[in-house]
């Protein structure tokens, strides 16, 4: 079929699925899935930049998404004055010493003549730096976490508008990507994959355990929102009368309004990103990226700096993932490090990109919406299916109870099957690269 006809039809089908959900389960549910679909589409765009344009195998998406979430907390949460007074200065000093140690060691390694002296100096620098760091760091942590541990127990953020956190989240992720890329990008693709998998787990470990920074598994709740709260809308007489004039219940109207406002904000970001990615992909830069992906040796012979370009696109793609992470934390209104799982935040995004069509921005966006929709809806469908299959079994039989309990795990199975089917029968995805 002609792509200019096929692609709009595919998008229309996915949109139709949301409309059907809106009719069957109510617009609230459909909009909820749609909003996360927007965020998933942005994550898929980020992964598509790395894999689709440049062939970089990054399976640390979860880490960059979580860093974006941390960005939202750091920017938007109000600062905790007591905690800053108790240990803020010492903490900043500790972090500065830690960074300085690493920078000094790297400089020593790079600048000095290779030999035994160099190794010795670097080791001494690292060990001494580590102990000074811990000497400054440990009391600071204790002091900060002692300040009202049940309520705050962390430094808080800067108290700025939460929208600002989106670029900040992107910057944090970009910084981490720079560090990973600098060390691991020269390596083979499998090694890069393992390295990114590792960095994602480390970032999560930091978020879970450094309570002074992110409250750890105690979660940061009540991240300020860029849109009004439902309860404020319901208390505003103006809104209630307007809702009544549309013939809507104010509670229902308020939740729809808030969700639509989010959808508007996210939609603007997504459209902007699609526009930028399309421009980039069709520019000389995009052609160069694809040339590098398809034949590294030839591009290098043409004078292209492959490692540098890889680093560039790795940072860009990770920054987009970080942006999506900050947006997701904004949407949820909370940062819950315990809920980040690689299957959900790394491999699912990969399924989106592969199914949608790697190398094609529209494909990634379509995949983001479609796979997210399936991920949410497979569970009720699976439950219904299992109910149907087990309807012949007697009530209270152990097998029936077990099957019904396990229905929730159908989604992993389904995603695996979808991924394998697409890879086998349509390896270039639903909307292939041009």
């Amino acid at each position, binding site marked *: 079929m002609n792509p200019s006809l096929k692609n709009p039809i595919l998008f229309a089908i996915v949109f139709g699925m949301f409309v059907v959900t809106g009719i069957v389960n109510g617009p609230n549910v459909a909009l909820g899935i749609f909003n996360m679909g927007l965020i998933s589409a942005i994550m898929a765009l980020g992964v598509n930049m790395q894999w689709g344009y440049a*062939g970089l*195998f990054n399976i640390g998406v979860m880490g960059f998404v979580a860093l974006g979430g941390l960005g939202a907390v750091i920017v938007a949460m109000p600062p905790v004055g007591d905690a800053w007074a108790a240990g803020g200065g010492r903490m900043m000093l500790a972090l500065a010493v830690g960074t300085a140690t690493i920078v000094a060691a790297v400089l020593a390694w790079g600048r000095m003549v290779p030999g035994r002296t160099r190794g010795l100096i670097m080791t001494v620098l690292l060990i001494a730096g*580590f102990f000074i760091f811990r000497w400054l760091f*440990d009391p600071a942590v204790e002091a900060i976490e002692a300040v009202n541990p049940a309520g705050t127990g962390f430094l808080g953020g800067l108290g700025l508008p939460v929208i600002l956190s989106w670029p900040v989240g992107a910057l944090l992720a970009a910084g981490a990507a720079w560090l990973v890329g600098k*060390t*691991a990008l020269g*390596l083979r*693709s*499998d*090694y890069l*994959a*393992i*390295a990114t*998998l*590792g*960095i994602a*787990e*480390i970032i999560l*470990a930091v978020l*879970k*355990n450094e309570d002074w920074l992110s409250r750890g598994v105690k979660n940061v709740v009540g991240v300020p929102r860029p849109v009004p709260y439902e309860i404020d809308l319901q208390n505003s007489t103006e809104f209630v009368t307007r809702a009544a004039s549309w013939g809507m219940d104010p509670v229902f109207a308020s939740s729809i309004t808030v969700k639509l406002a989010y959808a508007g904000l996210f939609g603007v970001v997504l459209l902007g990103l699609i526009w930028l990615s399309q421009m980039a992909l069709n520019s000389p830069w995009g052609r160069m990226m694809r040339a590098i992906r398809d034949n590294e040796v030839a591009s290098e012979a043409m004078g292209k700096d492959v490692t540098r370009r890889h680093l560039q696109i790795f940072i860009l793609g990770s920054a987009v993932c970080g942006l999506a992470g900050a947006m997701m934390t904004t949407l949820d209104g909370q940062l819950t490090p315990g809920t980040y*799982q*690689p*299957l959900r935040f790394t*491999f699912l995004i*990969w*399924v989106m990109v*592969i199914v949608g069509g790697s190398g094609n921005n529209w494909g990634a966006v379509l995949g983001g919406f479609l796979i997210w929709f399936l991920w949410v809806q497979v569970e009720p469908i699976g439950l219904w299916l299992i109910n149907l299959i087990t309807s012949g079994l007697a009530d209270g039989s152990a097998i029936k109870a077990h099957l019904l*309990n*396990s229905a929730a*795990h*159908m*989604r*992993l*199975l*389904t*995603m*695996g*099957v979808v*991924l*394998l089917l697409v*890879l*086998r029968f349509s*390896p270039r995805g639903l909307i292939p690269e041009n």
Partner: protein
Amino acid sequence: MDFLNAIVAFSNFVLVPGIAYGAQLAIGALGVTLIYGILRFSNFAHGDTMAFGAMVTILVTWLMQSVGINFGPLPTALLALPFGIAATALLLLATDKVVYQFYRKQKAAPVILVIVSMGVMFIMNGLVRFVIGPNNQKFADGERFIIKARTFKEMTGLNEGLAFKTSQCITIVTAIVVVALLFWFLNRTRTGKSMRAFSDNEDLALLSGINPERVVMYTWMIVAALATIAGVLYGLDKSFKPFTYFLLLLPIFASAIVGGLGNPLGAIAGGFVIAFSEVTVTYAFKKVLGYLALAGWEPDTLVQLMSTDYKFAVSFAILIIVLLFKPTGLFSGKAI
């Protein structure tokens, strides 16, 4: 006496757990490295293969326990192990037929196979959770300890006890047997030699009449055995939880890469390097140093370099350091 106490405390908390964990990682890494050497891709489904093998073993163990079969002081799971291996081998062979064979025939790029293995990972993960659920399962029975900490103290009169768990002893013995068998197989038997030839130079191996499908079949069967054994040993030593097995992927790959991907000897060395680094860096040395230090110089902090939650950071750091300074791993990779 203090010196002996320090040694015993060190053995109890670092040496023995480190050896057991290292053996588990080594067996896991052997599976990864075999697939890399012969099928030429990094198998991301390996952690979930281990989980599947352990799951079948657990189910058979429960069945045996319910009909009253047991293995005396040893865990019943050892009796159930062959069933686990057989089921895993069937699953892997079926996966190969349905999924991987197609891409092998097409000579697809290795990275495509890695993505395919991601799909397999999803399915296996879903399968395991579907059958046994996502929760912790305990299946160890029999005698828990060979030497209890208290018995050791009474025997030697030292302040520190040295506990030696049955699961640790089984892990170490099994690891030695498995590794010896594997190397005997690879170096002495006709099939093993053909596997090594295939890994060294595929075209030359094909030319000399080695049947590639046969080599692939044997590889999957050996990998099934290794994965199941590693999974069951880890489950006996710690506990079985599907998600933990997925996370084991990182230290296992780190072991295989640190040792040199494709090199079985390297996988074993890598397993112990990673395990000991993890245990040493995350252990609080207060007790050990307390015995060694002069009176009045005992440390007042825990002397723990990093908290236990950062053990991934350790595997990761070792991995990066080795790759930066020795890009093919400690032993040169890609040679069986």
